[in-house]
């Protein structure tokens, strides 16, 4: 059996465990209520066939919601002790971390997928520019990936889910909020906006899929996952 199957087994278990828990349904419901309200308000108010209302709001919602999704991934296993079993199975720490990351990412995608209905509304009522729509969804995947990896890192350091959540917020706040900081620093320092996720997400969501933005997201994900592997291996 290849390593791929082991990653998949870990992913499937964690994904299933999300849906065994009422928190998952609460998160999805609140997410859809907020995005639905915001999208349709923007849509009817502006009378434009576009998805911007949704994509403007998503970074904030991801920053708030994704750490709540990922908080349990390692913390809960540390708390109950099941991590001890998982790490004494013939699976490498890397595969465990990747499996859990994918579980979080797939959950976020399931959470976002009903927004395709909003897209359907737009298509039925007008003729949207598909560039920003496709770019927006590609950006959503990468943005969710970055926050999931950062949230997973926060979850790996503690056995307390609440601490994992707050640490996840703190870490993600840096990446989400640096864009705001960049607005009031001297012009010479404006480049710090490039450290944040917003700068790159907005660029992709305009419909321009630039390799620099993708490299940024892939780097954030890779570094966060590598740190997570390190933490899980060292903190036992």
């Amino acid at each position, binding site marked *: 059996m290849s390593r791929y199957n082991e990653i998949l087994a870990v992913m499937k278990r964690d994904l*299933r465990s999300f849906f065994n828990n009422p928190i998952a349904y609460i998160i999805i419901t609140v997410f859809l209520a907020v995005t639905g309200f915001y999208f349709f308000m923007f849509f009817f108010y502006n009378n434009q066939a576009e998805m911007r209302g949704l994509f403007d709001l998503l970074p904030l919602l991801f920053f708030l919601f994704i750490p709540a999704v990922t908080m349990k991934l390692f913390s809960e296993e540390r708390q109950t002790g*099941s991590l001890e079993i998982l790490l004494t*199975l013939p699976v490498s720490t890397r595969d465990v971390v990747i499996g859990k990351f994918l579980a979080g990412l797939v959950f976020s995608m399931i959470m976002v997928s009903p927004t395709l209905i909003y897209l359907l509304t737009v298509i039925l009522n007008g003729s949207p520019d598909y560039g920003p729509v496709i770019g927006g969804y590609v950006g959503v995947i990468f943005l969710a990936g970055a926050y999931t990896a950062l949230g997973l890192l926060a979850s790996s350091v503690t056995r307390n889910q609440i601490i994992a959540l707050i640490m996840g917020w703190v870490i993600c706040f840096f990446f989400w909020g640096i864009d705001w900081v960049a607005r009031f620093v001297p012009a010479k320092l404006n480049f710090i906006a490039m450290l944040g996720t917003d700068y790159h997400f907005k660029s992709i969501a305009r419909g321009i899929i630039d390799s620099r933005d993708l490299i940024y997201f892939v780097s954030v994900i890779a570094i966060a996952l590598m740190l997570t592997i390190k933490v899980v291996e060292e903190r036992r």
Partner: protein
Amino acid sequence: MITVKGLTRSYGDFRAVDEISFTINEGEITGLLGPNGAGKTTTLRMLSGYLKPDSGSILYDGVNTADDPIGIKKITGYLPESAPLYGDMMVFDYFCYIAELRAIDNAPDRIREIASMCRIREVMHKNINELSRGYKQRVGIAHAMIHDPSVLILDEPTSGLDPVEIIEIRNLIKDLGKKKTVILSTHILPEVEATCDRVIIINRGRIVADDATSKLQSSAGRGRSIIIRVSGTGYEGLESMLRSVRGVDHIARIDDSDLASAMATVSGDTDARADIFHAVCGKGWVLYEMKQERTSLENIFRELTIGGGNEQI
């Protein structure tokens, strides 16, 4: 065969396991016995590959765990204390998950086989959270056995179970031990006497005794201890009187009543009771109680782990 050499692991300044070495032969049931906090769990965690030793080595048939951690995990089955299984999963689903991670061919057949072996067929479609502790423990043992490992490591397999469940788990372990090498830890002595071929007693991270259970029991049988309670004198008077009696090597104070009480350990075949009786009469004290018991494995355990009989009991 498992060879452990100079194994050490510290948590901060605290040395949980301090340079322990032992060998475990194939097909033996070995009990790691010690009071809570002696380093049993830490030792088992290192044997299972969960913790890395600070120094020292663990060899499974000559292969160092540090060189091939995944390979070692394939031939061992490990159940941590209190069986921390995923509570939100159904027993059958849990086995499927473990079978998938362990790459077991023909998983459904193997799961059926292991379920009837561990007698858990009736709970296969229950959530793990809903199981009684006895069933949960058996599911845990089954999960550690699913890939037919040659070494089974069980941390406190009977803690928290009721007496009936304890007997069932012990019988299961004895059955398994006929074909496999089993290492288990416990702080309960009768457990070792009932299940293990061999016992390693550890205390404060060090091995204090390591022998076949039967040998330790017979060496324990040679000594005798006499509990004596008198009035008319203090403990010091009683102690000096006992010192003059032939055959008494060890005197420990017992502080549970107003009477002067002591436990005297007697070696060899001498029966010291007559001498003690005459000595008490000669001093004009009143003898309230004199009871002789054979030193059991329990006393050895107590002596080894408390550090001699001079402390108050």
